[in-house]
């Protein structure tokens, strides 16, 4: 059944038909007709942000915490350009979001009209796909296709640019079932031949390791379940990228911890020394591989990925499997079971003995002594005190992010949202609001650095307006800590512009916003302060003053291999050569 309605009404109708309950947005001239429609209905909740970048990060947080598509609505020109960082962030981390932008009327496009920007041009390279809607009749199928493209295959951000005259004009609406979606239909089932080849390799492997990534999370909770089954059944060790934390539970005995530049010693050593590496939904990012030509030199490599372009992009693999993680793991388990559930038990026992030796190094050890709170200690206490809660964690970008990944344990997928690929400071606060909106009763904590947090702190207004009781746990080292760390290692301890001067008083800031501020600078008070934060019914800004010169270890310096990890301060002098220092 098609119905006549305006383009603006179609937008709202399409959102409802796509199951959208929340839109993060900010109005302006070019989207007023859509805002008028939002005003006249109750089915969709609109969260008014304070800056469009915040809207996109909120939509990302919402999407990652629910597995659904996140939606934003912003105006033309500056509204659209403010969305660019969030779009790029979502593209790098494969987060499904739909961003709707207003545009000047079609007859003014190209005239440098007020608040005109070439939005589809600007966002072409930071979206999975984008559309400029020239005719109201095209709007329904483009809206439905936008959701289809954002959520299928390797997920990602899409943008629909809607000129104001298209919003006013009337056309016939079609529901999702009634529109024929374009040909876009990525392959989800893997070929059986390489899957069988991988099973054979698993049967023989002496030193196997699962290297999992965000693809497991994106494939849905079923995929995480299958991963757990596979790990338990085979007894192989498992590590994960930053993006994949929670797919396998941190409390599991096969868990090696995160790998990569600030990953755990045992995880990186296992990657380096393994004879079979099974990459499940990860992409051999440079934070993971370190020096390419020294990356896991002795292993046979299998790679499961829904995106064929990820395969052989940086690391040559022996067993490529294109398909959705969930589908492939299901087939993999089936074949492995049918062939008699074989593994090389004797060799595996030796492998685990080796891994236990690496674990004994205790690479995350630190000493909490003296009157200053160590950031690691703060996170250790946060972990201990929030463990039993229905907890979601977001982060900003920097040292605190890496410590959070090291010291917080995730038992389930979709509970950890962080900006991995783009490393966007300012992500965590808005993302925490997006998560909280999706899970109003959960404990949502943004582990932040003071510098990152300031980048989108205006969103505290959003948190308060919409009663999102997000906890902002700021590890305040009064430094751009991660920058400082690199300057110490690479630039002769010349700390050029890497300290946070003229910081606000965070407690007063909280009061000014109308929420609770807590300051803690004493290890002895920390537990009580954290409990006060948890128990407060509303948003909290927690200013946790920590040791200012702490560095984040372990660290694989740029241009080095996994087995050249630095474990602590004593090893840092002159370790990065000229070749390494050009890397970021």
């Amino acid at each position, binding site marked *: 059944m098609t119905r006549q309605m305006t383009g603006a009404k179609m937008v709202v109708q399409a959102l409802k038909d796509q199951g959208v309950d929340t839109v993060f947005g900010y109005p302006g001239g070019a989207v007023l007709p859509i805002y008028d429609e939002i005003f006249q209905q109750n089915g969709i909740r609109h969260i008014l942000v304070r800056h469009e970048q915040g809207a996109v990060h909120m939509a990302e947080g919402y999407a990652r915490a629910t597995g659904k598509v996140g939606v934003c609505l912003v105006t033309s020109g500056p509204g659209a350009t403010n969305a660019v960082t969030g779009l790029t962030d979502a593209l790098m981390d494969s987060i499904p979001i739909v961003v709707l932008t207003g545009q000047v009327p079609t007859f003014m496009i190209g005239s440098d009209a007020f608040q005109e920007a070439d939005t*589809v*041009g600007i966002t*072409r*390279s930071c979206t*999975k*796909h984008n559309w*400029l809607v020239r005719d109201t009749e095209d709007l329904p199928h483009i809206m439905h296709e936008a959701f289809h*493209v954002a959520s299928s295959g*390797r997920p990602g951000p899409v943008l629909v640019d809607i000129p104001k005259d298209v919003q006013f004009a009337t056309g016939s609406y079609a529901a999702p079932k009634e529109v024929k979606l*374009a*040909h*876009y*239909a*990525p*392959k989800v089932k893997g*070929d059986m*031949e390489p899957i069988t080849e991988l099973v054979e390799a698993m049967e023989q492997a002496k030193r196997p390791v699962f290297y999992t990534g965000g693809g497991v999370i994106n494939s849905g909770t079923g995929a995480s379940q299958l991963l757990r089954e596979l790990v338990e059944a085979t007894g192989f060790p498992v590590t994960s990228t930053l993006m994949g934390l929670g797919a396998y539970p941190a409390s599991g005995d096969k868990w090696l911890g995160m790998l990569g530049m600030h990953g755990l010693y045992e995880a990186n050593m296992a990657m380096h020394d393994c004879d079979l590496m099974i990459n499940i939904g990860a992409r051999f990012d440079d934070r993971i591989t370190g020096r390419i030509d020294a990356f896991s030199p002795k292993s046979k490599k299998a790679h499961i990925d829904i*995106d*064929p*372009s990820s*395969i*052989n*992009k940086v690391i*040559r693999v022996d067993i*490529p499997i*294109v398909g959705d993680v969930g589908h492939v793991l299901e087939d993999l388990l089936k074949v492995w079971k049918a062939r008699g559930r074989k593994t090389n038990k004797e060799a595996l026992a030796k492998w685990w003995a080796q891994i236990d030796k690496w674990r004994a190094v205790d690479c995350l050890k630190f000493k909490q002594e003296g009157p200053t709170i160590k950031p690691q200690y703060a996170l250790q206490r946060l972990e201990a005190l929030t463990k039993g809660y229905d907890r979601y964690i977001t982060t900003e970008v920097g040292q605190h992010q890496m410590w959070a990944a090291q010291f917080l344990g995730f038992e389930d997928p979709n509970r950890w949202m962080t900006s991995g690929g783009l490393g966007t400071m300012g992500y965590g606060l808005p993302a925490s609001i997006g998560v909280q909106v999706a899970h109003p009763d959960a404990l949502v904590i943004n582990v932040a650095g003071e510098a990152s947090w300031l980048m989108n702190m205006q969103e505290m207004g959003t948190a308060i307006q919409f009663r999102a009781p997000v906890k902002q746990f700021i590890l305040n080292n009064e430094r751009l800590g991660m920058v400082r760390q690199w300057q110490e290692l690479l630039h002769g301890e010349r700390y050029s512009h890497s300290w946070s001067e003229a910081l606000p008083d965070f407690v007063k800031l909280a009061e000014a916003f109308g929420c609770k501020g807590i300051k803690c600078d004493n290890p002895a008070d920390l537990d009580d302060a954290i409990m006060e934060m948890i128990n407060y019914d509303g948003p909290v800004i927690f200013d946790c003053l920590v040791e200012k010169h702490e560095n984040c270890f372990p660290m694989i310096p740029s241009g080095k291999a996994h087995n050249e990890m630095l474990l602590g301060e004593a090893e840092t002098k002159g370790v990065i050569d000229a070749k390494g220092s050009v890397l970021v």
Partner: protein
Amino acid sequence: MSPLHIKKGSTSHSAYNLRPTFSDVQEKHTLAVLVDNEAGVLARVIGLFSARGYNIESLTVAEVDHVGGLSRITVVTTGTPQVIEQIKAQLGRIVPVHDVHDLTVEGPAVERELALLKVEGEGEKRVEALRLADIFRANVVDSTLRSFVFEITGTPEKIDAFSDLMRPLGLLEVARTGVAALSRGTA
């Protein structure tokens, strides 16, 4: 238009070779890319090449299926085998791209390019230009007392050879279409 049988994303019998040889040898490949003929699609393809640092030696595009609204883009590119595989996979990710064909590896193909060359000269030079054009089967499509415009069709190498010969004879301008290519036979 000959239909392209290979669906993007498939791994067997596919334009994608997921197990390429990793060598440093630069290869030249001709790719046929079937796309929806919609606004911005060429910008997406070109943007991909510039953003990821791939080469474009030649690129042609035109709608080939007016009913289905499909255009065919023919790209000639160079790179190591690994880079060529990346280019194909990256092209396959673009949403309006239907199929990617590597004509260089999928059996024999024919390649043609059309060029127009304006040559100015008098006396012996003018006669010589006309004589060479005849050998190369180039047609005269415009003529004045002091100039010719030749039209020549052939492989890019043939057109290169012809323009080299015309240069000392008063070559003023060249316009080339870029390569159009099809696989041979019915495959």
